[in-house]
């Protein structure tokens, strides 16, 4: 029984070893010549402004949640659209039910003002 899980242990050991060994090799081989410009936080080539610890508007997460509605819709409708011609008619009805349920969620968020930025 336990032998069947052996390969998982081996896999775990290998996945741990490879990155660690690579990092050690890189650390041994690389030249070490630090200067102030190199030590700065990398910010797409632009100098960093102000403190790193700033507050984000928490409201943003509501947009993210609403986005999930479309995300789920896409994930499930793509395979459905591909197989549409081979499916019986009632599967189309289920797809519509599915979209209606998602739409209920979107409508709820919309009416509650989740899409309104202030």
């Amino acid at each position, binding site marked *: *029984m*336990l032998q069947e899980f052996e390969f998982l242990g081996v896999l775990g050991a290998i996945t741990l070893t490879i990155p660690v060994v690579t990092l050690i090799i890189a650390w041994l081989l690389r030249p070490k010549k630090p200067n102030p410009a190199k030590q700065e936080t990398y910010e797409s080539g632009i100098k960093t402004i102000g403190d790193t610890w700033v507050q984000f508007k928490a409201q943003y997460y509501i947009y993210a949640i609403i986005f999930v509605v479309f995300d789920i819709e896409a994930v499930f409708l793509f395979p459905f659209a591909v197989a549409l011609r081979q499916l019986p008619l009632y*599967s189309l009805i289920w797809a519509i039910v599915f979209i209606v349920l998602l739409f*209920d969620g979107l409508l*709820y968020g919309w009416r509650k003002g989740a899409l309104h930025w202030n």
Partner: protein
Amino acid sequence: MPIEIPTLNIAALTPFLAVTVTAFVVMFFELFVNDKRILGYLSLLGLAVAAISSVMLLGVSPAPAFQEMAISDGYALVLNLIFIVTAALSILISLSYLGDRALQRGEYYALLLFSTGGMMLMGAATDLIVVFMGLEIMSIALYVLAAFNRRKMGSGEAGMKYFILGAFASAFFLYGVALVYGATGSTNLSAIGNWFTSGGGDLTDPIALVGLSLLLVGFAFKIAAVPFQWWTPDVYQGAPTSVTAFMSVGAKAAGFAALVRLLMVSFGQAFTLDWQIAVAALAVVTMTGGNIAALAQKDIKRMLAFSSIAHAGYILVGVVPGTIDGVQAVLFYLMGYAFMNIGAFAVVAVLEHRVAISSAIEEYAGLAARKPLLAAAMLLFMVSLTGLPPFVGFWGKLYVFRAAVEANMSWLAVVGVINSAISAFYYLGVVVQMYMRPAAATEDGEEVVPISLSGPVTITLAVAVIITVILGIWPTPLVNLTSLAVFG
């Protein structure tokens, strides 16, 4: 080439679908309706449809649904009725309770219905993945409901504690599922059972047994069994009382629903050979721990929380024998518990006014003089929860203890009876406060706030009182109903 569509057999899950669809409809109308109480009544309508379809399905032979993922057997359908009763009585409490606190919102009813749907799914699930789905649907809705009173710190704290510890328990459960799947090669409950009996599996397989113990931990958390009960008093106390009433019965019943099916269908042999003693030990510490902690409580909601832990212990006594009689006794107990416990919480909800009476037990002093009928109802629920005849609580205890005695585990029944005697002390403590202590003297100029009973919560109280008494005198109808609860 046409794709083969799996057979769904949606008819078998009609009660679940009725509740879920109603939840969506409630959410939709929430946007357009100003008087949110209508949504409460709409929810009751949906529950009625679910109840009718459950009763109708009881007459039909059990049918698997969604490729053996769920089943509409007698066991699932009787449980459906328990969940529906719990939800309906809680909604009636909520209609009054939320209105007094300006919390009347449509989302409340939608969440409560989603949670009920999750419970039904747990009762009907025949696959560990679906059990988990039901568990999460139920729990996530309950986390939000526990935190529903946004103006109260305690409510938010309750929701947060419940959420963090609940997520922790879900992780235990999932790990258990993973190990059981690793050992047996299936997540289907009967396939796991077959693996043990004829599929070459062996009852001492370490991975399967570690998996089972992790699953037990997950369930023990949901039914609030000692030593996994620490969240219970804080969550029950902080959550709105109508929500506490709902989850003290519903979440517990749902936890037992899936636990009993798992133990009976999947681990039948392993369970009766080696694991009975583990569940028996859980039952003993749960009964004793719950009762002893309840003795020390000053707040009635905390007292009822610890009492609900003790009741989980009594119900576990019915699970231990692993017989179908034991299972039916468990269902009888849960149904009776739904009426008497929600009844008790309804009284708490009525009295827990912003100013009139808080939930401290001391403030129940002199209630008999102020509101004789309300005090009488509370007396009745307390006596029934103690397990004295002629109330339904007595028969529930009798049946679970009898199942233990018949399985040659009389010692367990003895522990249960001793615990019932201990519980009398704190239940009757409330009665002593109501009937024998005078109300605290009011200071000059302080007005005595009237206790108002509004329509819906009165219905809950009336139904709970009538059923507790009738089933106490004549338990046959419920015995007949639970005897339909067999595994398909």
